[in-house]
């Protein structure tokens, strides 16, 4: 029997007993999603692999404490998000709370709604490269919520559990993440238009 045929609760139980094949089975089931989360969060394959390894290592160190209060996948994602956020905090060279990994400017006030400058629609002018660049410019907390919801398809109640926040906070952070992404992507579209005009010999400014 292959590990792929074994129900996850049995794999977890065997892994809790130190069974190497069960560890590998759990890794095989979840490694793509965790790696994908890390990759979208950091945008670098080598770093994403390091973080994936660290997340699984933490998972396997703690697996004996897993009692099934939450879904295994949710628990694993919570560990992975914490590993990534910790790494990003260290990178930024300062200790910050989860709230501070969101954008302090936007958190302190009402989200900007500068619709007047956003006449062009993003639909049709977006590609994955621009989106990845924009995602990497998001504050880490926004980035995590955006990737978990819009890429990995988690619901807000699951994200709240993963991120250790309220459902309302998850919704609010996702909205702000999208708003920020929208601004960044519109700027990219405008910049592209300016470059095209320059290439065509026209005025370089749209203003």
């Amino acid at each position: 029997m292959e590990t792929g045929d074994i129900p996850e609760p049995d794999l977890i139980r065997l892994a809790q007993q130190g069974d190497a094949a069960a560890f590998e089975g759990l890794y095989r089931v979840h490694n793509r999603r965790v790696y994908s989360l890390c990759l979208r969060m950091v945008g670098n394959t080598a770093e994403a692999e390091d973080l994936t390894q660290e997340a699984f290592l933490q998972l396997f160190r703690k697996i004996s404490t897993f009692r099934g209060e939450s879904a295994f996948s949710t628990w694993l994602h919570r560990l992975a998000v914490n590993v990534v956020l910790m790494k990003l905090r260290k990178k930024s060279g300062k200790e910050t709370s989860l709230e501070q990994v969101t954008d302090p400017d936007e958190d302190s006030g009402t989200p900007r709604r500068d619709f007047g400058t956003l006449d062009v629609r993003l639909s049709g002018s977006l590609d994955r490269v621009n989106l990845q660049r924009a995602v990497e410019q998001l504050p880490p907390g926004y980035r995590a919520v955006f990737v978990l919801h819009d890429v990995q398809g988690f619901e807000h109640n699951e994200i709240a559990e993963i991120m250790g926040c309220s459902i309302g906070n998850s919704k609010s952070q996702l909205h702000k993440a999208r708003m920020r992404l929208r601004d960044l992507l519109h700027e990219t579209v405008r910049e592209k238009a300016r470059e095209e005009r320059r290439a065509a010999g026209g005025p370089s400014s749209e203003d």
Partner: protein
Amino acid sequence: MSTMDCSQFAEQLDEWLSGERSAAARVHARECHECRGLAEDFLAIAKTARDAWAIEEPEPSPRLWTSLRAQMQEEGLIRDSSRQAAPARARVQPQIQSKPAGWFAGWFPSIVRPAVAGAYLAVLIALSILFVGPSGKQIDDSQWLERTQVSIKPLTAELNSAERSVLSNVSTVNPILSTSLHQNLAIVDKDISECEKSVREQPENELARDFLYQAYEQKADLLAEISDRGVDNQ
């Protein structure tokens, strides 16, 4: 005429994006250029993210599990599989999908095939040459290349012998494992080939040589692992 204002529309935006659109929200979106633009942009962002990333999730390098398992062995998280009870062992026999499992740490006693044990020893010898060799001495590129080739020659002979032996045994015992082994061997052989190329180009580069020896370790590890599983399945 819309009965909903922009802030009320914003509160229902999540539902809107998931396709649950109330009549009032529809009227507001039709009449409010800004909110309509916001909703369309959010939909475009979500669609691009989903199309680009969610449908095809990338797979991490096969080396990741190897490295993770080695770390777990070092920390004593993995129980020695040879001591597992027979029923549990029979239940959990993962098919190797894309990687060799386990590095050197802790598996010398588990090698039961003489050829693989020989390859393992050869790797150790080669590593010894690497680490105790005259890395501090000033020697030229050709000497480095010669030294590396000399250390590799017995190693590759051992590995080739082990490969033939393991392939022969596994193909008769477990065709699925055999297919998996061929796939994994192709990966590690490609890795070895790339590392050899790097060493030929930069024979004095210690890191390049180190990678080459690691690639050989990986192959020895793969053969040992498959050999072990072949024995279990007999």
